[in-house]
């Protein structure tokens, strides 16, 4: 048997720093991470978040190697999040990878964070050709694979859905531990009255900033006048935001003639969102693929796995080009080669005369 290919991956684009070890078949050998948790009522800022990552990244590397039972010699490539994300936190992973690459004489692979979420979701769930809803604190996109890249069918035109939830949690001064979204979800379960909120679907896109402004300004007076409880507000906000997401996902499915949906990203572990999406999918004769917090929240393994796919297809990033970038579109330059292979097979099965264009720029 030939040696398994192994990658070490670093993720630190937001408030989580994670280091993961995976093999090419998607087996996760280790995936430790540490989250920067701010006090209730506060968000995370770039500089402070970077300091958190600086403090935790090296112990995480040790822990990832030890848990996986490997030595640096066993590693084929070092993968890091090239973007999108916050600049200073992204730099931490990039610097460590550049140093390790020279110390251990291993190649580097820069990875698109959004594509990594999708690839991780696909390998974990086994979803073949789903419409992907990518929802997190920084991103909200409906994505489908077409002609060699992931194409964005719809997205937020302002803030991400997770950002809307996180910022509302600050209004209620809910705890950020383990995450503000989780605490909103728990409180929402106790909600009884639905409060009307603006509903902002614009064609294939969604807008959340107006809803946030509305609920921020009305929450205080509604709570003071006992018109509703914090639980009612959490419940109403979730129902409204998630209904919008289900609507644009369904529209993308109609466009692509797809039946299945894969939800990835941190908000993807919200069980109410999963439930709403599952109902919609079952009405269309499809199914929902989702993962739990181990995989849908940012982690090192998703970067390792996606980078290893690229590396196995002959791609790597020279040290001098191992930059990081705050803006990096899902459909911008990275293409999933594994995705392409699967899709080629898929289209062959469907007997479609599919004219394949290969984009292999990383």
């Amino acid at each position, binding site marked *: 048997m030939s040696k398994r290919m192994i990658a070490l991956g670093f993720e630190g684009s937001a408030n989580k720093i994670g280091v993961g070890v995976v093999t090419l078949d998607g087996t996760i050998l280790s995936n430790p991470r540490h989250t920067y948790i701010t006090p209730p009522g506060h968000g995370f800022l770039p500089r402070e978040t*970077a*300091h958190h990552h*600086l403090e935790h*990244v*090296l112990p995480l*590397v*040790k822990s990832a190697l030890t848990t996986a039972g490997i*030595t*640096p010699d066993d590693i084929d490539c070092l993968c890091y999040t090239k973007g999108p994300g916050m*600049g*200073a936190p992204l*730099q*931490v992973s*990039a*610097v*460590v990878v*550049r*140093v*390790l690459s*020279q*110390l*251990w004489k291993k190649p580097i692979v820069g990875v698109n964070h959004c594509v990594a979420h999708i690839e991780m979701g696909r390998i974990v769930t086994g979803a073949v050709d789903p419409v992907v809803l990518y929802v997190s604190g920084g991103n909200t996109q409906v994505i489908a694979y077409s002609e060699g890249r992931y194409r964005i069918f719809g997205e937020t035109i302002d803030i991400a859905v997770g950002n809307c939830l996180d910022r509302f949690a600050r209004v209620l001064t809910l705890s950020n531990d383990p995450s503000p979204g989780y605490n909103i979800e728990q409180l929402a379960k106790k909600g009884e009255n639905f409060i009307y909120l603006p509903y902002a679907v614009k064609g294939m896109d969604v807008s959340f900033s107006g809803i946030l402004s509305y609920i921020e300004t009305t929450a205080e007076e509604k709570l003071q006048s006992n018109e509703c409880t914090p639980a009612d507000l959490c419940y109403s906000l979730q129902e409204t935001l998630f209904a919008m997401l289900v609507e644009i996902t369904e529209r993308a499915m109609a466009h692509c003639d797809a039946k299945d949906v894969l939800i990835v990203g941190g908000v993807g572990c919200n069980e109410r969102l999963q439930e709403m999406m599952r109902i919609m999918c079952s009405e269309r004769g499809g199914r929902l693929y989702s993962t739990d917090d181990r995989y849908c929240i940012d982690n090192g393994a998703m970067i390792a796995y996606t980078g290893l796919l690229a590396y196995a297809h002959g791609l790597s990033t020279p*040290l*001098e*080009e*191992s*930059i*990081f970038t705050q803006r990096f579109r899902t459909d911008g330059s990275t293409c999933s080669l594994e995705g392409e292979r699967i899709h080629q097979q898929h289209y062959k099965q469907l007997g479609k005369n599919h004219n394949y264009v290969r984009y292999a720029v990383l």
Partner: protein
Amino acid sequence: MEVQTLSSPWQFTCDLEVNFESDEKAYIVYAALNVDKELQPDKVKRVMSVSNGKLAAHFEAVEARFLRASFSAFVDVLTLATRTIEEFSPEKGL
């Protein structure tokens, strides 16, 4: 840090030297940090070099606050790169 009295706009300068006692290690840090360019090249310039096992970094800025921000961020990643070498160098027999 010093303030130059010349009429050049790059009035604020600062020099940092770290002795790695090895050109190889100094170069690893140099190569790792040289990838990231200064974000505001019209306000801060950074030049690095390696010699005699030492990494030298020279900063020039048009205002003290740019020099401070750039220098401080640089020291953070320099420390990270150094610690990474200390902890994961193959010489340690890891």
